[in-house]
């Protein structure tokens, strides 16, 4: 099974298990920016007790959930890694938290139909991709934000973005990227 099929299978299984989710990370920023390759897929799930076991059972024995969990320090989200053993492809599963922006972006998520793959995926909005990536601030996050800002600039809800960047104290970073883009 190719990595594309892995991702589609996991998304279908999550949907069938009625686990609310959204695809985040590079797949979401690429949807609003420029396509670049990525080594894994990131999915935020509304965790409920036992749902990872159910997911593991549904996708089959070639997938394994890494026993090592990590905690994202900004929002407190727990991350599990689901790996497809034959190829090493990994899907990072983040648990939805009570963090106000995590909740807000989950509320605003949108469905996108992918007829070519016969699947519907759920993505955060472009505004929430910008806000989240400004919050994480890794090199690749800032590079992604720069591109999303340039491509989506006229369509973005700037009041919404600035509300959250003020809350997260990242407005200076946003302004610096905007200034770089206009120079």
């Amino acid at each position, binding site marked *: 099974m*190719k*990595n*594309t099929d892995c*991702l589609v299978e996991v998304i279908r299984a999550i949907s069938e298990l009625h686990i609310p989710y959204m695809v985040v990370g*590079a*797949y979401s920023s*690429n*949807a*609003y*920016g*420029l*396509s*670049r*390759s*990525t*080594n*894994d897929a990131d999915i935020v799930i509304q*965790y409920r*007790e*036992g*749902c*990872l*076991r159910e997911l*593991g059972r549904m996708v089959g024995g070639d997938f394994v*959930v890494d*026993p*090592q*969990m*990590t*905690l*994202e*320090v*900004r929002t407190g989200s*727990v*991350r*599990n890694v689901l*790996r497809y*053993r*034959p*190829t*090493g*492809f*990994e899907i990072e599963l983040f648990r939805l938290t009570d963090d106000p922006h995590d909740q807000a972006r989950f509320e605003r998520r949108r469905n*996108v*139909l*992918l*007829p*070519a*793959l016969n699947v519907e*995926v759920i*993505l955060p909005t472009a505004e929430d991709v910008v806000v989240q990536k400004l919050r*994480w601030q*890794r090199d*690749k996050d800032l590079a992604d934000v720069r*591109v999303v800002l*340039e*491509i989506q600039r006229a369509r973005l809800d700037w009041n919404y973005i600035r509300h959250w960047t003020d809350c997260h104290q990242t407005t200076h970073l946003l302004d610096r990227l905007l200034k770089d883009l206009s120079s």
Partner: protein
Amino acid sequence: MADPVDPQIRQQQRDVFASKVERAREMTIEQKFLLTLQLSEEAMEWTRHIIQAENPGWGPEEVAEEIRRRRAIQRRIEDQGLFVPHHEAGEQDS
């Protein structure tokens, strides 16, 4: 502070970026999602071929394990300061 990059090269960078942005604006979300899948697939395939070429005796499982090892290193670097190990009892669900 003065830009250390040659002005001509800087202009070329801007032109390339502008052209990529123009093309991306004409694509749908679905097209970009599919392109991401394709690019990622090709990148992974390329890595797999390189690892196989460097280790001719390896089978698919050893190649997959090497990819996992490299990904773990990359994740450790990218996670620095943003993720910490989580050891809370009772949270494991696998």
